[in-house]
């Protein structure tokens, strides 16, 4: 009625827009309502597989079972899908994620599960669509604009309808991730099928193959590389969607980071970020193609994003690399000379001693390194601890065992098949591991014990490790001097100033690391009120009466002490006599490494092989430096009171050691076992021609 009373707005009057309004929003609203009312069951059916897999596989299975199984399963899959190296990498990375803490582990597992589910659905949907598009032009004509639209529209936009229909939560997060991540897979599969040479497909048809055979015999195998690249791209994009998925209510590390951001919690952000990064790298590595095992993750994600439409670029680059790899000639490597064999024997002996040492006693009557972080370690009279127990060698022992194991592996590996397999299964790898074992064991031996009532003593195991490490190092270095290795390219005649500067910086970092805090002790200055004091006394007495229960009692004691109110914090540096002084020994090892690195850089000028020798020594001592700090950190992670933390100095020392290794491994990689060209071996080409002349 009001319309008639009021004067109509004129055509130029903006109010006319309200009068002529197109109720587009209302239509959509009605459509959504209609879908809700009439298609509930369809929506449920759509959501069901997502819901089911996320619930049953991710939340009820992956996040529940022991972390060990998840790590092992992932490592196994990686070993089978890729190779042992990737498998080992996966195992180590995921273990680190787990060691960040249970809360982080659960989110890690959920992240892996979430991505696995999303990629699984992408594969299920994307590959068949890609294949159909590749084979039938008409289908591609329809699919292609849909993909373009999916990739042009921002994910925030299509997020909304999914939230309308499926609610906030993991189901709609998975679906949105899928919409975002599946197009490259479809494009690459389509491209892969189309790139199969026409005559090969025709050959299959010409021999009477039915179409399914053409597909499975020829098209899919020949498109495999493209499809694999597609899966990897999908995965990278899914990873890059984790943040948005977290906003939409998916669990996992994304949500953790989201929370860290909103609570401004740097510790949570750092640990969560590290776990996130490791998971991303692990998943990327597991799905990379054989020949593209390089490139840093962020670069790869960026590349996946830039090439999400013009996917061809991803293929041609990878195929070019593959071509180069395929044409590497087959040659034999220099066999082992008797002298080399003897020195390998010596190295092996040392390595075995090192490996055995961790099963022998490292400390007696008390913990040594662990005692810094755990008061209970003072009261372990009459007990001995081997190289792997928490109060014995702990991570010093683990690392020594790992290095010793590597020495053994390198000797046996290069004895059985010299020159093949990993480049590090050779004299230089053995020398690096042996020196690192020696340095690590020596550091444990030299470490200042905590001022205890009981002296932890020096177990026979430590001495064995030091002696074994020395023998192995000497053997490996002498082996290295006779090993027939040569550089792949002539080394530059110039002095490698970069390496000199790099190792100087590393030494500076180590000095700073030594002078910074290695421990951050919040237990000191506790106020032990009489009640707590009484509890402590009681437990002490119980421990003395009942030595067999010492372990559990110690843990209870720790809890009681930790419950005391705290008034001050104590920071101990890596050099001062109140601490273990490991920073000092790490610096000594680092300085040796740096000097060797200078020699490896070509000062004074010697022949090429000396650079290899000194580079190896530098890497060995660098690895040792790293290992000292790492063992310190992880020993306390393993057994310390939560109020006793390893300090930033130890972290800096790890960095310095890693830097020394990284700056010298470049030159080592140039050296390979020399090849011998056997004249009598039939050259396949020559043989061909012979055969042809016989044929005619």
């Amino acid at each position, binding site marked *: 009625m009001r319309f008639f009373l009021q004067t109509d707005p004129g055509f130029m009057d903006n109010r006319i827009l309200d009068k002529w309004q197109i109720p587009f929003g209302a239509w959509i609203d009605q459509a959504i309502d209609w879908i809700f009312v009439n298609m509930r069951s369809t929506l449920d059916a759509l959501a069901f597989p997502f819901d089911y897999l996320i619930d049953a596989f991710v939340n009820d299975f992956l996040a529940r079972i022991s972390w060990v199984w998840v790590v092992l399963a992932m490592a196994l899959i990686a070993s089978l899908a890729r190779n042992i190296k990737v498998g080992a990498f996966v195992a180590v990375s995921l273990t680190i994620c787990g060691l960040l803490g249970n809360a982080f582990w659960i989110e890690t597992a959920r992240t892996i599960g979430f991505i696995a589910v999303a990629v699984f659905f992408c594969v299920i949907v994307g590959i068949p669509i890609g294949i159909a598009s590749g084979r039938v032009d008409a289908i591609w004509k329809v699919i292609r604009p849909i993909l373009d639209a999916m990739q042009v529209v921002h994910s925030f936009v299509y997020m909304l309808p999914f939230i309308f229909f499926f609610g906030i939560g993991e189901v709609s997060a998975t679906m949105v991730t899928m919409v975002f991540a599946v197009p490259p897979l479809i494009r690459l599969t389509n491209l892969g099928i189309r790139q199969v040479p026409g005559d*090969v497909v025709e*050959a299959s048809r*010409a021999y*009477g193959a039915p179409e399914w055979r053409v597909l499975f015999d020829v098209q899919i195998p020949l498109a495999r590389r493209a499809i694999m690249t597609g899966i990897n791209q999908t995965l990278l994009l899914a990873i890059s969607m984790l943040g948005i998925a977290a906003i939409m209510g998916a669990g996992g590390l994304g949500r953790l980071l989201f929370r860290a951001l909103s609570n401004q919690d740097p510790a949570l952000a750092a640990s969560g970020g590290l776990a996130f990064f490791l998971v991303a790298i692990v998943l990327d590595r597991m799905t990379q193609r054989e020949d593209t095992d390089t490139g840093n993750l962020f670069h790869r994600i960026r590349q996946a994003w830039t090439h999400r439409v013009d996917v061809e670029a991803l293929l041609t680059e990878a195929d070019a690399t593959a071509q180069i790899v395929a044409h590497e000639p087959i040659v034999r490597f220099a066999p082992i000379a008797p002298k080399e064999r003897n020195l390998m024997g010596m190295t092996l002996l040392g390595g075995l001693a090192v490996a055995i040492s961790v099963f022998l006693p490292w400390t007696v009557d008390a913990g040594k390194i662990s005692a810094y972080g755990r008061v209970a370690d003072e009261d372990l009279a009459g007990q001995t601890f081997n190289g792997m127990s928490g109060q014995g060698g702990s991570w010093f022992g683990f690392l020594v065992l790992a290095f010793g194991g590597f020495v053994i592996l390198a000797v046996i590996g290069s004895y059985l098949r010299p020159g093949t397999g990993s480049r590090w299964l050779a004299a230089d790898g053995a020398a690096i591991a042996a020196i690192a074992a020696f340095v690590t064991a020596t550091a444990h031996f030299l470490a200042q014990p905590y001022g205890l009532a009981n002296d932890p003593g020096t177990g026979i195991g430590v001495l064995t490790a030091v002696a074994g490490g020395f023998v192995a190092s000497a053997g490996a270095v002498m082996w290295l001097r006779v090993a027939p290795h040569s550089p792949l390219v002539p080394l530059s005649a110039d002095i490698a100033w970069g390496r000199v500067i790099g190792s100087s910086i590393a030494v500076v970092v180590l000095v700073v690391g030594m002078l910074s805090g290695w421990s951050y002790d919040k237990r000191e200055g506790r106020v032990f009120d009489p009640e707590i004091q009484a509890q402590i006394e009681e437990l002490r007495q119980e421990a003395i009466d009942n030595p067999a229960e010492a372990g559990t009692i110690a843990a209870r004691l720790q809890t009681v002490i930790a419950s005391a109110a705290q008034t001050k914090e104590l920071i101990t540096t890596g050099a001062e006599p109140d601490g273990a002084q490991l920073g000092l020994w790490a610096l000594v090892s680092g300085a040796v490494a740096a000097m060797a690195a200078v020699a490896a850089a070509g000062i004074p000028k010697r022949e090429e092989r000396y650079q290899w020798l000194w580079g190896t020594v530098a890497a060995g001592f660098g690895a040792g430096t790293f290992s000292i700090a790492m063992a310190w950190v992880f020993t306390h992670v393993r057994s310390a009171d939560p109020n006793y933390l390893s300090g930033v100095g130890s972290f800096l020392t790890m960095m310095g050691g890693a830097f020394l290794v990284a700056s010298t491994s470049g030159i080592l990689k140039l050296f390979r076992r020399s090849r011998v060209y056997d004249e009598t071996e039939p050259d396949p*080409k020559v043989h061909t021609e012979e055969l042809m002349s016989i044929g005619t």
Partner: protein
Amino acid sequence: MAELGEEIIRLENVYKIFGPQPRGRAFDLAKSGLGKDAVLRQSGHVLGLNDVSFSVNRGEIFVVMGLSGSGKSTAIRTVNKLHDVTSGHVWVDGVDVQTLKGTDLQAFRRVKMGMVFQHFALFPHRNVIDNAGYGLKVQKVPKAERDVASLKALSLVGLEPYANNATQELSGGMQQRVGLARALASDPDILLMDEAFSALDPLIRRQMQDELMVIQKELQKTILFITHDLNEALRIGDRVCIMKDGAVVQIGTPEEILTQPATGYVAEFVQDVDQGRVIEVQEVMITPGPIKASMSLGDALHSLGDRAGAFVVDDQGRPTHVFTVNDGIQASDLSSALRTDFEQCGPHATLNEVYAAAGRGIPIAVVDDDGKLIGNLDPRHIMEEMGRVEQLIDGFEREVFM
């Protein structure tokens, strides 16, 4: 087994038009006799095959020759229905191939023919023996049985030792041998070879041609061979079909193509051919007309007529001595004029092969497998024959271009 020489493949007025509407205006234009260019101009469709008819006999090597784009591949593909034809019939062993569909077509392709491709088209993810056995695999032959047949086929092409190699490890020539073995392994009647040797370098190509001819003799396959190289066509073909712009220009034996080119177009091709390589001795030799050693010198000279010389044969008919005009005029009696240092050759030797021997000016004895004299080859005739074809082409050139 059907008779050799009986017709096995026949293309009957086959048209093939590429484009969105092959049966439309383009087809009408083609039927009305317009050529490829005109059809393209007026309808935008490519006339791949223009009223092509030819037939291939069992056990022969039938070569289709033409420049690139002349429709050779299109023609061969209609035979196993990799292409549908627009009009016409393709008969293979009494079956109209173009009516076959689905499983019938697949079964037909499996048993009837093997195909060899220009760029080998091997399956790069299978090793040599599995490539060779692919046809049998499609036929669901068990692996063990398949390997026996594959090895046999590989041994035919001399590749048995490479059975377990990856195909990429082989040279081009060897890869094409694998392609050939793949075609032979399921023992089909017909081999379709589309520019099979064109990607190989000349030396290897010749070897492969020789081998193919040996294999063909041995196994009596029917081979439909495509090439753009006339030398190759004339060398291996029992009959040659020359195509231009989708239409057949001439069909005939290599000799017919050479000596009686149907059009200037063919003659133009023939021009580049080394004639001596194709023309056989038996077409140039004259009847032997031997003389007797007991004749007088004068009678002998008289019986030579305008021949350069004649042979004396033993009681088995084998040539023992040669008597030439030159020797006859200088000698005092027949026995002192006879010489034994003459050359012999078989009737299928090409003119090139005897060319060097002819340079001595002494007649060449053409003998059969038993060594019996069947012809007398006058060196002058060889030179003449090789020059004659040159002239023929010159003539065509004048006719066509002036």
